[in-house]
């Protein structure tokens, strides 16, 4: 009896001490993972800078800003690659933004409830398709289709890349726009309807403008996804590093920054000029996506404060 009691009184502090030790360990683990994320980001940046910045000293500015990308003969003009990326991305935006916005409006405003319940998860599945699968689809389905119907020498072109990228950006644009439209208070609709507007006029003049900043965020995130995409564009754009000349360039082969890095990194001698220039392209790409994401966050922040004002 006495022994049992003694055991009981001892057991409590031991259990507590053990629990405390467990908590400390868990806390340390969580803290470590949090810090490691920061460290990884910094390391990526440091590594990118260390390998890429020498390129700006090894190759003169005139060469880097030139229009010819022939690494084998020492021509490292980045302009065709940058314009190639921008061209493919711009094409993707032109296709995906109207389509994505229209789909979001359809889903939110016109589709019956049961269809909406099907569409939402389907769009999430769309977002999960690996880009190499989409690239494959682009190669065997989209490119031949373009070649036959647009009378092009090869279907592998900037336009094919834009179509595939639009496909990849669509889920992001649709679901973020849908959320933005959903966040518009019902009172906006009521106000417009009470002024004698019909449903469609209300959507065009009151709901979508009220969701404008959220829709801009959707577009930015879509662009961010498109410009950094590699696999699909590598497979369908034809990979010719040439300067786009006018609008017709959209239907000719181009090469993007991402595709260049992916295609050439495996062949390049470690530490060579070419190697450093490829990393420099990575820096340029990083800066562009960083700017796009920054713009998206700024817009998101503005939207947040505006909604706070509404609630007052």
């Amino acid at each position, binding site marked *: 009896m006495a022994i049992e009691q003694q055991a009981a009184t001892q057991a409590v502090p031991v259990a507590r001490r053990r629990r405390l030790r467990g908590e400390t360990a868990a806390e340390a683990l969580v803290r470590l993972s949090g810090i490691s994320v920061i460290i990884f980001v910094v390391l990526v940046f440091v590594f990118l800078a260390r390998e890429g910045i020498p390129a700006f000293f090894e190759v003169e500015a005139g060469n880097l800003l030139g229009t010819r990308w022939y690494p084998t003969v020492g021509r490292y003009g980045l302009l065709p690659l940058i314009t190639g990326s921008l061209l493919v991305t711009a094409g993707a935006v032109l296709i995906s933004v109207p389509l994505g916005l229209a789909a979001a409006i359809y889903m939110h405003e016109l589709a019956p409830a049961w269809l909406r319940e099907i569409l939402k998860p389907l769009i999430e599945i769309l977002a999960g398709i690996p880009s190499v699968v989409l690239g494959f689809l682009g190669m065997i389905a989209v490119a031949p289709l373009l070649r036959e119907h647009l009378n092009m020498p090869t279907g592998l072109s900037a336009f094919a890349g834009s179509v595939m990228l639009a496909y990849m950006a669509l889920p992001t644009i649709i679901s973020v726009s849908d959320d933005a439209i959903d966040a518009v208070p019902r009172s*906006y609709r009521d*106000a417009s309807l*009470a*002024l*004698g*507007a019909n449903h469609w006029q209300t959507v065009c003049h009151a709901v979508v403008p009220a969701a404008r900043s959220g829709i801009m965020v959707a577009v930015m995130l879509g662009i961010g996804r498109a410009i950094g995409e590699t696999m699909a564009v590598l497979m369908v754009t034809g990979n010719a590093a040439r300067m786009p000349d006018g609008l017709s360039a959209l239907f000719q082969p181009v090469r993007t920054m991402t595709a260049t890095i992916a295609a050439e990194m495996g062949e390049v001698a470690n530490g060579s000029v070419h190697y450093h220039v490829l990393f420099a392209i990575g820096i340029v790409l990083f800066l562009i996506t960083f700017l796009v994401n920054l713009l998206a966050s700024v817009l998101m922040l503005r939207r947040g404060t505006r909604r706070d004002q509404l609630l007052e």
Partner: protein
Amino acid sequence: MVTGAMPPTSAQPPSEGTCDAMTTTAVPSKIRVEKVSFAYSNAEALRAVSLDVYPHEVTVLFGPARSGKTTLLRLLNRLTDLLEGTRRSGHIYLDGQDIFAPDVDVAELRRRVGMVFAMPIPLPMSIRANLTYGLQLKGIRDRALLEARVESALRAAALWDEVKDRLEDPASSLSGGQQQRLCLARILALEPEVILLDNPTSGLDPISTSKVEASLHELRQRYTIIAVPHSVQQAARIADRAAFMLGGEIIEVGTAREIFTRPRDPRTRDYVEGRFG
């Protein structure tokens, strides 16, 4: 009771809650609500409500929260159409015409029966565009006419002097009181016949409140006004006629004098005297 312009049903004797003053009124009602019941998908809101609203009067619907005031108001210009899973019975007549009849143009109805909401909602556009929006939807394109309507509506809502130099500014840049008067002006620009006001002074300071109340007195000469007031005191200040609502029913209707000085129903008396609610 004049029956000429009325549907046959309106010739029936007035329901029990209607008081003597109304039966002796020789004016036909602008809006007649007849045994209207309404339920949202999850709750009953109105039970067999009947009410006559007369032109050029301020009719006030008052009562505790969730008594069906706003629902009744929203039924009058069919804003309730938007909700799914609602059930409705009974009839509402505007100038003798059933507003729920299948051939009624809802947009046109909402232009005739304008509504100002409890929370001012400026549409995401300029001050001027907020006013011309409804007019343009109605098909008015003449610039001079639009300008004239903008000015007269803003004057009627006592807002012209404050905004005349900044009509292109976004409407969201106005203060709360100005926004509420803008919403009123927006409705006035459409030159409706009936104006519904759902607690139009809820967010306003006393000075703005008295401005809005004063403009109501002016406006009733041209319009028929139905308002859900902020308080019993406000109801007494603005009402020509008042209906006391409780639990989705109209307990008592009468002239303001009757309702606020010698109500017949003990529940009305208790509420007016502040014993509950």
